[in-house]
């Protein structure tokens, strides 16, 4: 019973993927289709991103609304980031970077709503995304530079004797990109949400006590509100960092050194 109580109150329970509607049928071998909370929030994210862009549509108005200004400002920032990082001649990657930024940003922001689900706290989403980007960038580099791509693993001016060692180090460092991109996002979101869950449970217990304790608890509660703000900042920072790194990987793939 004690063990069960621990499972229910676990701060990691919020990250559990559960099936909301499922279909099990002995067709196509054995078909199992489920709409999980992860799937539901992914759909919600899609509708929110599309809806946000509809609200920000400034096609028929002379004076833009606030949504429009915020979207145009985000577009300008991302556009300058792409031009600075990947180069003016490679602006064709802007739609990809823009979509990626809004996918991660809105995914992170939805997760800050109490009792919602954080899709970016799912290892499979983050690692799937980072592995896809890693393979994509490698394919792009191979298609542009062919066999010369492998010169990327030998920094210029390396003495011949050190080449085998450096190639190994560079290869490991390059391969680590596949995981690091996703783990950075996933770990930040999981850590932040777990901390908020633990602290809010503790604060709830304190607020439920006697009046003096409840009044005194307002002080840690203020700090907690600050932490919620920090979590919102993390949502923005992590989506920005992810897109910045993808830009940097794209630059490496296109320009090699």
């Amino acid at each position: 019973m004690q063990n069960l109580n621990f499972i229910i109150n676990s701060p990691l329970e919020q990250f559990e993927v559960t099936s909301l509607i499922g279909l099990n049928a002995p067709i196509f071998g054995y078909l199992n289709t489920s709409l999980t909370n992860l799937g539901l929030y992914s759909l919600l994210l899609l509708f929110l991103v599309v809806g946000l862009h509809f609200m920000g549509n400034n096609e028929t108005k002379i004076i833009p609304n606030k949504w429009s200004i915020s979207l145009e400002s985000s577009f300008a920032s991302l556009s300058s980031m792409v031009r600075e990082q990947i180069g003016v001649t490679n602006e064709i990657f802007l739609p990809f970077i823009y979509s990626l930024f809004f996918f991660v940003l809105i995914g992170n922001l939805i997760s800050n709503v109490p009792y919602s689900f954080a899709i970016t706290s799912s290892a499979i989403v983050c690692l799937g995304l980072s592995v896809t980007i890693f393979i994509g960038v490698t394919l792009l580099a191979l298609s542009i530079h062919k066999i010369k791509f492998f010169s990327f693993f030998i920094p210029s001016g390396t003495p011949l004797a050190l080449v085998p060692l450096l190639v190994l180090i560079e290869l490991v460092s390059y391969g680590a990109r596949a995981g690091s991109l996703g783990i950075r996002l996933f770990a930040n979101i999981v850590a932040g949400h777990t901390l908020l869950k633990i602290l809010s449970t503790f604060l709830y217990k304190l607020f439920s006590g006697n009046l003096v304790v409840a009044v005194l608890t307002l002080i840690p509660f203020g700090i907690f509100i600050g932490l919620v703000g920090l979590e919102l900042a993390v949502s923005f920072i992590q989506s920005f960092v992810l897109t910045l790194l993808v830009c940097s990987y794209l630059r490496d793939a296109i320009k090699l050194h």
Partner: protein
Amino acid sequence: MGKTFTRPGRCELVRTFLQNQHFEIHSEATVCIVIFSKMAFLGLRKWPTPFLKPMWPFMAAGTITFYLVAKLQDAAVRSPEFAKDPRNPYAAQIAKEAHH
């Protein structure tokens, strides 16, 4: 050319607009590009941009990742630890296959 569009006479309108703005019309294509850039997609203006050119490596990568994740899932649901787990939706199928 105008027949291909839902609103006839649009080409002429654009042509007049371009001429009024002192644009040099090189060919019919110039007019069409303007029309296409004004064409709506779900009520939004469409901004033509290359899609396949920047995205093909990521589409291929997505396919590879999908295959790898599917293989990983298959291996995980068939692992001795989870093959008989009541939460495993494939448990019945795995048990059935084990009998054959």
